[in-house]
């Protein structure tokens, strides 16, 4: 109970954290400092609360009557909520720390306090929805999150594409909320109250259950950014300030995952097609997401596409768990849930770190176009090193934490494909092939972005706007990477939290230790050994570089004698690096060439560009919405803006009501 109290206190503190800044001058950083202090204090309070709760570890709940019809302040804390609260408190605190330097009040007098307030509200909304056990309360938290995120996306609303991103986000998130409202109304119809409890239906027989499941998949899928509901995500995440993008990608997307897991927990035995559907969505989202990432030339959009891929991996884990649950195979259930939850935590760490890196790059170069950068590593050495580590984690490479999650997931699919029927083997083949493809394609996309941005020589003489920040920005990045490494070396330490979450997520699962399922100890020590060996070598290289600096003039790159030092634009760019893949996968990754038009004498100046676009948004949604808009524009004739005509409408309506009333009277 103390735990829940502390966590509530922490969430309230987070929600209020932005407001102290309003008391101070818009040009001074004092207010932001107070906000940061409050955020750190609240997060510490929340983490303390989590620790206190895990010590006991029994689910607690409080219910306080509330005036709102149907609503009650039903709060609860169980393993699943507690697990998703970890990244929330961690990333909120680190993001505020990063923002202290990245979005400094004195540099952004107009938007600094605004960002602070909505940042706090975004965190608090997520905290509220994680604790809510009542539909109305849940939707309150959900809407707070969604609306706060909207205001954070449009911070730089002066730019047209930012406004467009906000608009697309707004429409799609509320489409999701619509599905959730229907879902909760149907649930209320079945349960008789908006408070949540296990549904008295047998999903195998009752078709209503499947409708509920599909509604949850759509409603929460929009937030999670699973394909085909992903189209809002790249624009929105790239428009927000980088520390906010980190919170959105690292934590907000996971709220969709949480919602699906929570709702699934209220069904007894799911039919097997649920798991297959979730798995298929996961595979397609993972593979297509990473293919899109490998064709993207805007750094933050590329990171957002990689988030879509990682959400796909999480969904694959959930699909495996569902298949295990419907076939009664406990091993698959546990492995799938464990992999999904591990990946939730891992992704929230490394993706946030990558967004912070992008913030640091943006801070120094004022551009997100990878093709314009290059050779940044001497100017941003810390960011460069951090990017390598975080990118390795994102690719699932040992010795970092990303590997642990994918390793568990692979083992689950190996179990699926080696035992059982032809169909499960077929699913296993698709999943393992998909995972292998995802793993190797993410190496392509991250080598591509790291190489283009940090290695080689600068492609344009971009002015460096200020040096690398080595204060708060570097500190928060370093803490995130320490967490990534720590999870890679000691994954067993987090196992108890995962175990609690697995026990509480699906109903009727007996508690059982997870540590015997996969050899955690061995892989952890292997990771540690690998890291030490690699680190020693790289440390020696850095030391040697420092000692030999300035000794003798170093030559140009030999490069078969071709190199022309005056034109670094001859280097491979991000688009040339991804060309092989974008040619192979052109059916997913449509890219248009803008070829130069040159003809006749005295041709005019022309240019060449390749542009990739999203097939779902650009190919289907926008044209269909536009044609729908054209069709219904006939209705505009009714609305003319003249008062007399509106008065006429009122008179007609009144008369019609009178007629109807007199007809229906006996």
């Amino acid at each position, binding site marked *: 109970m103390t735990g829940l109290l502390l966590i509530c206190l922490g969430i309230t503190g987070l929600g209020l954290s932005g407001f102290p800044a309003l008391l101070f001058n818009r040009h001074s950083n004092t207010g932001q400092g107070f906000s940061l202090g409050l955020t750190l204090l609240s997060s510490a309070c929340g983490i303390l609360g989590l620790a206190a709760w895990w010590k006991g570890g029994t689910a607690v709940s409080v219910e306080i009557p509330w005036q709102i019809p149907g609503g009650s302040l039903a709060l609860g804390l169980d393993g699943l909520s507690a697990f998703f609260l970890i990244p929330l408190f961690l990333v909120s605190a680190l993001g505020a720390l990063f923002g202290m330097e990245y979005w400094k009040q004195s540099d952004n007098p107009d938007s600094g306090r605004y960002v602070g307030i909505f940042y706090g509200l975004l965190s608090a909304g997520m905290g509220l929805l994680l604790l809510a056990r009542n539909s109305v309360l849940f939707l309150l938290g959900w809407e707070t999150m969604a609306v706060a995120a909207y205001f954070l996306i449009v911070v730089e609303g002066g730019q047209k594409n930012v406004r467009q991103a906000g608009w697309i986000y707004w429409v799609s998130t509320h489409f999701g909320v619509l599905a959730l409202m229907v879902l909760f109304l149907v649930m209320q119809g079945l349960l008789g109250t908006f408070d949540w409890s296990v549904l008295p239906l047998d999903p195998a027989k009752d078709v209503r259950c499947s409708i509920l499941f599909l509604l949850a998949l759509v409603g929460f899928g929009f937030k999670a950014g699973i394909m085909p509901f992903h189209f809002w995500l790249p624009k929105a995440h790239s428009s927000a300030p980088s520390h906010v993008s980190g919170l959105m990608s690292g934590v907000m997307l996971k709220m969709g995952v949480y919602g699906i897991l929570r709702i699934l927990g209220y069904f007894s035995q799911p039919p097997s097609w649920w798991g297959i559907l979730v798995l298929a969505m996961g595979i397609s989202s993972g593979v297509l997401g990473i293919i899109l990432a490998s064709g993207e030339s805007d750094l933050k959009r590329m990171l957002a596409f990689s988030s879509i891929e990682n959400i796909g991996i999480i969904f694959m884990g959930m699909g495996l768990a569902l298949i295990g649950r419907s076939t009664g195979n406990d091993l698959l259930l546990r492995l799938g849930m464990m992999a999904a939850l591990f990946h939730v935590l891992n992704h929230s760490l490394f993706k946030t770190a990558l967004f912070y890196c992008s913030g640091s790059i943006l801070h120094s170069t004022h551009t997100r176009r990878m093709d314009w950068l290059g050779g940044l590593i001497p100017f941003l050495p810390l960011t460069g090193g951090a990017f*390598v580590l975080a990118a390795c984690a994102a690719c699932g490479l040992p010795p970092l934490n990303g590997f642990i999650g994918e*390793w568990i997931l692979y083992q689950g699919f*190996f179990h699926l*494909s080696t035992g059982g029927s032809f169909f499960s083997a077929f699913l296993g083949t698709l999943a*393992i092939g998909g995972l292998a493809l995802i793993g190797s*394609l993410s190496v392509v996309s991250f080598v591509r972005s790291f190489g283009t941005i940090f290695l080689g020589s600068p492609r344009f003489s971009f002015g460096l706007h200020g040096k690398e920040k080595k204060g708060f920005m570097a500190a928060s990045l370093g803490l995130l990477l320490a967490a990534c490494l720590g999870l890679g070396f000691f994954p067993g330490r987090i196992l108890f939290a995962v175990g609690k979450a697995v026990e509480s997520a699906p109903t009727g699962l007996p508690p059982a230790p997870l540590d015997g399922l996969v050899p955690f100890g061995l892989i952890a020590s292997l990771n540690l050994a690998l890291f030490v060996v690699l680190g020693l*070598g790289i440390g020696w290289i850095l030391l040697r570089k420092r000692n030999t600096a300035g000794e003798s003039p170093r*030559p*140009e790159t*030999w490069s078969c004698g071709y190199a022309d030092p005056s034109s670094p634009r001859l280097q491979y760019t991000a688009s040339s690096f991804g060309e092989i893949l974008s040619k192979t996968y052109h059916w997913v990754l449509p890219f248009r060439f803008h070829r130069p038009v040159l003809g006749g004498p005295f041709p005019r100046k022309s240019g060449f560009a390749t542009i990739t676009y999203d097939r779902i948004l650009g190919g289907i949604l926008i044209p269909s919405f536009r044609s729908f808009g054209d069709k219904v524009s006939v209705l505009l004739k009714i609305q003319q803006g003249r008062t007399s005509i509106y008065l006429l409408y009122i008179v007609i309506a009144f008369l019609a009501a009178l007629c109807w009333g007199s007809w229906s009277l006996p």
Partner: protein
Amino acid sequence: MILNAVIHVSMVLFLSPLLLGVINKTKAFVAGRVGPPLFQAYCDLAKLFRKGMVLSRTTSWMFLAGPWVGWVSVFAASLVVPLGHHRAPLAFQGDMIFLAYVLALGRFFTASAALDTGSSFEGMGAAREVSFSSFAEPALFFGFMALARLSQTYSLSEMVLGENFKVGPEKIASLILVTIAWFIVLLAENSRIPFDDPNTHLELTMVHEVMVLDHSGPALGLILHGASMKLLLMGALVMDVAFPWDPSGLADWFMFILEMALLAVLIGVVESFMARLRLKFVPNLLVSACLLSAFGFILLVR
């Protein structure tokens, strides 16, 4: 147990460059030349480790980190691969995933080191290396699935160990398919003909070699030795599947050496009689390798 581990590690470290010699001798024999000596690779390595390095002014620490991480990752990967059905020094549940991913770690850093030179040749090589590997990776995993299904175990050493590997004639077909698929993957991953020609003089057509154009001295030595270790470990994988017989103590190590020599001769013969594929057909061949090994797995499920 310890003896086997010592033999394993020393074979990986010291025997692997010999494979390159055997391949080159075979090619020379087919072409009617004398060819370089059998131990040429050892001489090359000894020479490279004694030399200094030229580091271009474009490069950063990544340029040297690439060869180091590449070498360590191949060595770490070799620790989980059973050589000739002997249990590998490290064997645990899920080690085949570690094998694939630690090799990917090496690829990440090698390709980054290539991009670090800022030369478009090396960028080209890096792009090809990582893109082609993404086509080959599923083939490797489908093969693992077939072996896991056969043996109902989830560790490489267990998969190919004697008692788990007794197969009736009905399973032979899928093993053959996996062997062929993995042989294709081996050729691609080790940049052999028909994917890549280590001897070509046209950098525009190369894959792996063009990535390391600017490395010299000990760094190049590490790359060369890492490449030979990778050839050995992938060769061991192929041969473990191709010759599923039980280990019989020390004698089996000689059996393994013979198998590897046979493989090297086979690669040499392939290189002698085939030309390089056109680059745009490389993905097709790798995708067909994926299909072969996936089909090998599906045959087992029937």
